[in-house]
């Protein structure tokens, strides 16, 4: 961490610390893999008595709002500002996977006011009657027209709005190019798997997540990322079983081994790819030309939310372009909101990792609800992991 002169400024130190914190915990499945997804991280805002009094008499929306979200996915300063403005404290519960969120809501009594589902889960929540339709009159900052449609349309089911877009991203792979011995950087999933079984044997990681691991194996054969076709899944399974002895790990916590050199290549989400690339330029983020996953996260309100008004107030607050721009700067995931993007620096908007070229982006697929809930894919992953 130290520079040549051996000392670093306090500000620099904080930046490095922040980066380290980001790097050490990946966005998603880390908590899921450890089974500790139910663990609750409570920010300092949880103890009302310790917070400064709001500048004006608020209290209309209650004293708190409970948010279920992903790790490292918000700017804490924004929550403080929200409390300042409304008197409601934001209590944050962190989760590791959509499945866990779903499991908790299915079990009932989650106590959440706002949560952050991913596009392909929303129809399931609606079908299971677990979330409520949103009243846009309570979300003045929501401007449907300003969102890029492909990242916002999953929020509506049968013409009814249930969720509003938060951020989006892609699932590609990160590769440490310094280990390629001068060979060109791979650009396809086919190369990803072939390299895994040859030159990078013992150095590749895949997600501990059926959607992406099976999806990207299907891509080897040019099948759909979302395929539930038996024959196609059989092909993917064979590939996975062949590759398994060559894998470094099946884990979604891939940043630490990538950074310390134990792993050379891994399936990877946008934000992680960006973070690693910034610190170690030799780690490239690649979107397979065959395609892969494109995803979009949303804000939604579960049925029976205990602080309904506060839930609307928080979503509306976070949809404010100025607030949202701060969020993007803090976590590094792109926003689909044109108003927000107008406030972001040019370098960020032109970053090829965050905003891939149109042809790469167009080849990607959104995960499908059927893929998520398909029992055959779940069993396939279990066979792969236990093989």
């Amino acid at each position, binding site marked *: 961490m130290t520079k040549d002169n051996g000392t670093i400024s306090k500000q620099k130190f904080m930046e490095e610390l922040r980066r380290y914190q980001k790097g050490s915990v990946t966005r998603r499945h880390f908590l899921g893999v450890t089974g500790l997804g139910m663990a609750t991280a409570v920010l300092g805002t949880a103890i009302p008595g310790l917070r400064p009094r709001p500048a004006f008499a608020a209290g209309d929306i209650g004293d708190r709002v409970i948010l279920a979200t992903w790790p490292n996915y918000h700017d804490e300063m924004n929550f403080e500002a929200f409390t300042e403005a409304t008197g409601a404290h934001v209590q944050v519960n962190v989760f590791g996977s959509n*499945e*866990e969120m779903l499991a908790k809501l*299915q079990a009932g009594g989650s106590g959440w006011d706002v949560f952050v589902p991913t596009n392909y889960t929303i129809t399931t929540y609606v079908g299971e009657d677990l979330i409520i339709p949103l009243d846009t009159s309570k979300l003045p900052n929501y401007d449907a027209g300003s969102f890029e449609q492909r990242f916002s349309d999953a929020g509506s089911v049968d013409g009814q709005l249930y969720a509003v877009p938060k951020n989006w991203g892609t699932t590609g792979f990160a590769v440490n190019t310094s280990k390629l011995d001068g060979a060109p950087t791979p650009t396809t999933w086919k190369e990803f798997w072939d390299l895994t079984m040859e030159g990078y044997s013992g150095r590749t990681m895949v997600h501990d997540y059926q959607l992406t691991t099976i999806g990207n194996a299907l891509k080897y054969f040019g099948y759909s990322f979302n395929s539930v076709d038996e024959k196609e899944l059989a092909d993917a399974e064979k590939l996975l079983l062949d590759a398994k002895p060559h894998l470094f*790990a099946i884990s979604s916590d891939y940043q630490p081994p990538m950074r310390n*050199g134990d792993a050379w290549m891994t399936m990877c989400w946008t934000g992680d790819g960006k973070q690693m690339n910034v610190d170690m330029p030799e780690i490239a983020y690649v979107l397979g030309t065959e395609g892969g996953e494109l995803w979009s996260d949303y804000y939604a309100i579960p049925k029976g939310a205990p602080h309904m008004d506060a839930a609307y107030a928080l979503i509306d607050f976070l949809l404010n372009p100025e607030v949202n721009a701060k969020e993007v700067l803090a976590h590094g995931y792109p926003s689909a909101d044109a108003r927000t993007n107008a406030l972001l620096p040019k370098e960020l908007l032109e970053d090829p990792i965050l905003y891939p070229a149109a042809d790469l982006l167009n080849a990607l697929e959104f995960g499908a609800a059927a893929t998520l809930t398909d029992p055959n894919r779940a069993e396939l992953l279990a066979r792969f*992991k*236990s093989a």
Partner: protein
Amino acid sequence: MTERGRKALLLAPAGIWLLVMLALPLLVVFVFSFGERGAAGGYVPAFTLEQYANLPARWTAFKNTLILAPLGTIAALVIAYPLAYFLAVRCSPKWRTSLLILVIVPFWTSILIRSYAWIFILGGRGLPALLESIGIDDIRLINTPFAVLVGIVYGYLPLMVFPIFVSLDKLDKRLLEASADLGSTPWRTFRQVTLPLSVPGIATGCMLVFILLMGEFLIPAILGGGKVFFVGNALVDLFLQSRNWAYGSAVAMTLVVVMLVTVSIYMKFISRLGGQREDVSLM
């Protein structure tokens, strides 16, 4: 109050606790295991043996568990016994307490964090780098069954050390003198007196570690890189990922049965081996 009433009162708290925290959940799992998975996951009431019929799909997980749990138990025993012996028999009382505390100290930190530390020790920049510097190249330790075994031994060592320590500590040291007096060499004294008399501690330690290992999922997930798959990992995936509660319940019930069978066979074996008056006790 009658004697019977007093007894009932004494047992009531534990009884209620067991009923609410053990019997009822187990009953729920039992009932669920005959149900079906809902379209979006979860549980749909039914009566089918389909989940049990599907058990072979998790055979590898059971196999891995049934190999690595006993192996881990034995490895922990092999390392814990000399340590416990040193603490109880050889260590001067002046140091004993401090050393015992050192054995417990790791328990003050979450096993998650402790296992993470091992990622760095066994990772490419840890031990393998050290081995490379003395000319042993290309050793992969992390994400192997060996790493899982190391994690298991590390994580469960105190559970093994303490019962053995207790049984060795309460061992009457005059028995060792008696044995020497009767012409037995120190090694034979250990084999004929110390070891048999510490069997209750060994049995207790092994049982504690073995039972907990049968349900272990964290260490294989972290140090096995997801490639070493225990029944515990299968259960985590079934409940938290694919949300197949019915099948998960069937796997859980099977694990309970396997554990009961293994443990009762083990108890029989131990009681025959030890021939002790004191039965195998949990410390």
